[in-house]
């Protein structure tokens, strides 16, 4: 991973490596800063980051790897209680955050009684040696959403990162010397992998920390962006704003859509808006670094059937067990962290939770086995939101469901059984204070009783039927 970046730093030292709206660093600057970080970090220590997407986050990540430390990216705008569960599950040795962004982390550390070092990237640091907790070859811990309501730290070793980058190299190699725009947060599995895959290829990666498409387009034109990577909901929003109309982005050649829910309608709209674009789909999971399958649709190709996400990348094997997709690849994580390392599989095959089938054209996805809500490129566990709702004194029971939404992929709808008088507005505010904004329900329906199973648990199937009546879908 580091070797190609050092090579680009020698061969094209002044080429932009990573830029956000506020800073642009060349390959030489990036590698130099990574060196500085590496000198202040200890081998085996776990370094959490609460940094905005951009050059500093990337340098810290590379510095960690250079020093043999473990990089643990956390969401920039998470609330204190969300940070608290991540920080207590896997106690990092230090957290790097700018003073302006450190409030929620500081609150979380106090509440958890932890004395973890908070490091401002602007101030020099030197961290004490700490006993190693994770196995020697671990390079990164990636947070994901889990089925029991807490985000799960996924433990990736060096070999998985290298294998994932290698498998995706054929797709990114043609972008050497060109610019790529990725609005996905770097703490996010796909956002993080996208930056590294392109840097290794020698491309310049422009990232964004907020949705200001006017500024984004100006940056894309200025840097002659060839490729735009995003979630299906991001592309729907850009289409709505007419980004692809006319010759808005003259240098753009391809768009890459992450996540499985890119349906035929979205692809057709993109093609209508700009018939010269190559449409590229990628399918992956937080439990494996980089994409597992890719599908390139050239301007002359027929649009693929709904759900097709292409063939497995080199070194990736797919198989179906009943109708669930299982994957085996060197990019699959070592395991997840739960007091100790828990392997993801017992036989080397990762259960993806996705339902579909494989034919000679590749993998076709039909939906999720589990109840995760996919929204704006995030995978959201309804259980986490339900726990927050039930945490309100006037809520007896809550069921949270994803309802298909033409723009957002899914919208989050909650069915709530209140105790006495309660307004939906109050609950939304309650959620806002405790959840990152993308996890806050779009709609809360207050009902007299939530349907229950004979054992007294909420009946999700009946609840869904009820929501469909309430939503008029």
């Amino acid at each position, binding site marked *: 991973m580091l070797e190609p970046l050092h090579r680009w730093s020698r061969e094209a030292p002044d080429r932009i490596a990573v830029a956000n709206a506020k800073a642009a660093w060349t390959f030489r600057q990036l590698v130099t800063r990574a060196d500085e970080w590496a000198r202040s970090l200890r081998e085996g220590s776990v370094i959490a980051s609460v940094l905005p997407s951009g050059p500093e986050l990337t340098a810290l990540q590379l510095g960690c790897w250079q020093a043999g430390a473990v990089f643990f990216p956390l969401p920039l705008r998470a609330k204190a209680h969300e940070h608290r569960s991540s920080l207590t599950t896997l106690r990092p040795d230090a957290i790097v955050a700018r003073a302006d962004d450190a409030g929620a982390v500081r609150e979380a550390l106090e509440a958890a009684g932890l004395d973890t070092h908070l490091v401002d990237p602007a101030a020099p640091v030197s961290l004490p040696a700490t006993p190693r907790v994770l196995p020697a070859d671990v390079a990164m811990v990636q947070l994901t959403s889990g089925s029991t309501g807490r985000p799960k730290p996924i433990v990736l070793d060096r070999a998985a990162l290298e294998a994932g980058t290698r498998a995706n190299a054929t797709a990114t190699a043609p972008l050497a010397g060109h610019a790529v725009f990725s609005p996905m947060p770097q703490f996010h599995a796909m956002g993080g992998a996208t930056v590294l895959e392109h840097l290794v290829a020698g491309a310049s990666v422009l990232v964004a920390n907020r*949705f*200001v*498409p006017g*500024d984004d387009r100006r940056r894309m034109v200025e840097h002659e962006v060839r490729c735009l990577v995003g979630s299906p909901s991001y592309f729907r929003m850009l289409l*709505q704003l*007419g980004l692809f109309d006319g010759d808005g982005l003259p240098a753009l050649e391809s768009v890459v859509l992450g996540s499985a829910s890119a349906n035929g309608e979205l692809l057709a709209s993109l093609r209508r808006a700009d018939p010269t674009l190559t449409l590229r789909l990628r399918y992956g999971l937080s439990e494996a670094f980089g994409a597992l399958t890719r599908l390139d649709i050239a301007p002359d190709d027929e649009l693929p059937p709904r759900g097709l996400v292409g063939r497995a990348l080199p070194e990736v094997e797919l198989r179906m067990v009943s109708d669930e997709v299982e994957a085996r690849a060197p990019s699959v994580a070592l395991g997840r962290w739960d007091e100790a390392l828990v392997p993801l599989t017992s036989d080397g095959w990762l259960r993806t939770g996705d339902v579909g089938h494989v034919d000679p054209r590749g993998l076709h996805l039909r939906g999720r086995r589990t109840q995760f809500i996919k929204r*704006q490129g995030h995978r959201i566990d309804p259980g986490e939101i339900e726990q927050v709702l039930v945490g309100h004194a006037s809520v007896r029971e809550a069921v949270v469901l994803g309802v298909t939404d033409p723009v957002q992929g899914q919208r989050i709808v909650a069915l709530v059984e209140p105790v006495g008088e309660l307004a939906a507005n109050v609950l939304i*505010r309650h959620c806002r204070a405790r959840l990152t*904004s993308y996890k806050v329900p779009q709609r809360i329906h207050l009902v007299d009783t939530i349907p229950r199973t004979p054992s007294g648990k909420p009946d999700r199937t009946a609840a869904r039927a009820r929501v469909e009546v309430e939503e008029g879908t």
Partner: protein
Amino acid sequence: MSALETEVTEVVAATIEESTGLTVELTPETALIDEGYLDSLTVLQLFAKLQDRFEVELDMDDLTEETFGTTRGIATLIDDRRG
């Protein structure tokens, strides 16, 4: 605060409330994007609503941090467009 700023501030607050359920008190200088009031969906709703309400045509290039960063910025843009 000009009459237009007051009116824009009301529209922005109403859109945020509609989109997020959050009752907000805004001044013309409140940092709408920096402080997380305007997420992507709310920005899009606001973009449509401003054009309706003030009968102006806005372009996606108007959706910048400078203009949508504060209600004062939005008011300046609308004032400019109404010429």
